[in-house]
């Protein structure tokens, strides 16, 4: 490796066989380029899918009522269950230590919303102060509903960013503007942002206000909670399942529903969903590893193929060198030395080029399910090393065979 004479001989060969060296280098570099881009997009896809699932707080649990499907304690099936304020308060008290945030919700129906003379066709929902954390709604302007609003049944509204963009084009900020909900003026105090446009088409008002102003009584449409973060994933799942079963069992008793009636009280926990999703990303990870390994194998095959062609092309030269007194090992050494040098230089060239491309273009990729394609430098680096080593190993065979060929035979090769 550190034989200066050998280096000079190799540089001579490279300098005088520019095209061959260039083509060899190009195929190695493009192989690595493709591999890195592929791995990058694999990562991008994982990022994208993770992002799609990240919209709501990952520990959230949602509870909504349905219709009973079983006869129980003399009550007929087909009875519609209605959640009430007491249910929420009771759940909050019972599971106080398990809950991080909790909020009831009402879908306010049969109201007309107007801004000035413009009629707005957005859904109005009554929610609690904690709802912001459950929905993972980011505040762009102003603030969310707070406890004071709830207690004082304040006539305030929080609007989604899309509503701001669609309706409040003419004013600098919608904060302080009034919207009219069935004749009652509500002051806009905040603008929130969500991952999806659909979720930004909502107007939130305090739950108490919605019950009082729009004949809601003490009825609720659903309830949602988040659980405090757990130490690890499995614990978080266990915690979620535990809470889910507790709430369900309490509500079934409160509404006289058979314990095995699946339709009457429905509880959905994001954590359980997440478990499935983690399974999915794992499969994706495995898939991309598989693709990556296949690409590496293809790269190795490619490199050894090139090596074989190079050796074949040099058969005569090898014969001449041997006739002049080159030992077999010096032939093998010469070919491998050159191969490793060219592969390494072009391999890292391809690596740097593809990483630079990912760095530059990656953050600008905006396609569903693909986000910020990037590649772990260490992984890419070791891939290049593997490729060089494997290519060398693969190149050793033809080199060794060439060195072993009888001089007369290689000189006969025209």
């Amino acid at each position, binding site marked *: 490796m550190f034989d200066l*004479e050998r280096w*000079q*001989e190799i540089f*001579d*060969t490279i300098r*005088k*066989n520019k095209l061959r060296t260039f083509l060899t280098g190009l195929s190695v570099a493009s192989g690595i380029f493709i591999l890195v881009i592929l791995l990058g997009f694999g990562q991008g896809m994982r990022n994208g899918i993770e992002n799609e699932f990240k919209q709501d707080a990952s520990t959230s649990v949602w509870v909504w009522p349905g219709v009973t499907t079983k006869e129980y304690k003399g009550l007929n099936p087909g009875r519609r269950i209605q959640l009430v304020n007491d249910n929420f308060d009771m759940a909050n008290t019972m599971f106080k230590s398990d809950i991080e945030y909790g909020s009831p919700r009402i879908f306010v129906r049969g109201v007309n919303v107007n801004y000035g003379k413009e009629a707005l066709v957005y859904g109005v929902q009554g929610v609690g102060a904690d709802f912001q954390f459950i929905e993972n709604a980011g505040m762009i302007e102003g603030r969310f509903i707070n406890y004071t609003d709830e207690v004082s049944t304040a006539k305030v509204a929080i609007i989604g960013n899309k509503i701001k963009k669609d309706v409040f084009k003419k004013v600098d900020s919608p904060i302080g503007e009034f919207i009219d909900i069935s004749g009652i003026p509500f002051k806009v105090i905040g603008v929130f942002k969500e991952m999806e446009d659909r979720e930004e088409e909502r107007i939130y008002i305090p739950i108490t206000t919605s019950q009082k102003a729009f004949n809601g009584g003490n009825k609720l449409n659903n309830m949602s909670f988040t659980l405090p973060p757990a130490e690890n994933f499995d614990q978080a799942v266990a915690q979620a399942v535990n809470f889910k079963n507790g709430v369900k069992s309490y509500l079934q008793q409160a509404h006289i529903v058979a314990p095995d009636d699946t339709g009457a009280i429905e509880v959905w926990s994001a954590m359980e969903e997440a478990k499935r999703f983690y399974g999915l990303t794992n499969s994706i990870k495995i898939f991309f590893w598989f693709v990556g390994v296949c690409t590496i194998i293809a790269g190795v095959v490619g490199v050894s193929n090139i090596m074989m062609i190079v050796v074949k092309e040099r058969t*005569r*030269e090898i*014969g*001449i*060198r*041997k*006739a*002049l*007194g*080159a*030992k*077999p*090992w*010096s032939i093998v050494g010469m070919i491998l030395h050159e191969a490793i040098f060219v592969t390494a230089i072009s391999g890292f060239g391809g690596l740097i080029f593809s990483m630079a491309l990912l760095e530059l273009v990656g953050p600008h990729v905006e396609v569903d399910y693909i986000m910020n394609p990037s590649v772990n430098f260490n992984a890419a680096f070791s891939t290049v090393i593997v490729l060089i080593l494997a290519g060398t190993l693969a190149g050793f065979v033809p080199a060794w065979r060439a*060195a*072993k060929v*009888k*001089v*007369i035979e290689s*000189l006969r090769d*025209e």
Partner: protein
Amino acid sequence: MIEIKDLHKSYRMGSNSLHVLKGINFKVEEGELVAIMGSSGSGKSTLLNILGMLDGADSGDYILDNVPIKNLSETKAAQYRNKFLGFIFQSFNLINYKSAAENVALPLYYQKVPRKERQEKALQYLERVGLKPWADHLPSELSGGQKQRVAIARAMAAEPKVLLADEPTGALDSKTSYEVMDLIQKINDEGNTILIVTHEEDIAHMCKRIVHLKDGVIVEDKKIEQVRAEQYV
């Protein structure tokens, strides 16, 4: 210098065995210029390959400069080739991407001669074959005769004990052939031992001794009056 005793060689062709050399005995003294003649299939090329350690014999002895050449490993054979032998081929066998000087310097590379010294020596030998001005030319820029002269310079550069030439004039016209033979004769005049395989009578008669091979045995071995090539140049 060279001593061969009862040399046998056969080639296996599938199930048949082809007996090419059937007991060759001959001696070459230092400073001789020997032509090995014979029609194709007479075994002359096989004999040269064995003498050049490019191929092994089945039985018999081969002693080169008091060193028995037998059962050599590839590495050992390479060493001996480098030290004892210089090759001149019919098709020149220059490395096409190396300049004339670099081709001449190549055997010295395998003798581990430092680069500077190699270059100096290469130029020196090119000068001896009259091609110093063409030192930086690639083989493709040289004529056939020039290529063969570069090949001769290369064979000489390693300062071998014996020069082995396989049809050195086979690919050249007669005028160039005589030029090359003139060069070979002059090298021989300096005391170098040279063996030439040829099937051309006039080339053979420019040597000092002719060995005739037929069907794997020596049928004639005679010293002759050397015809100088100079007069035809």
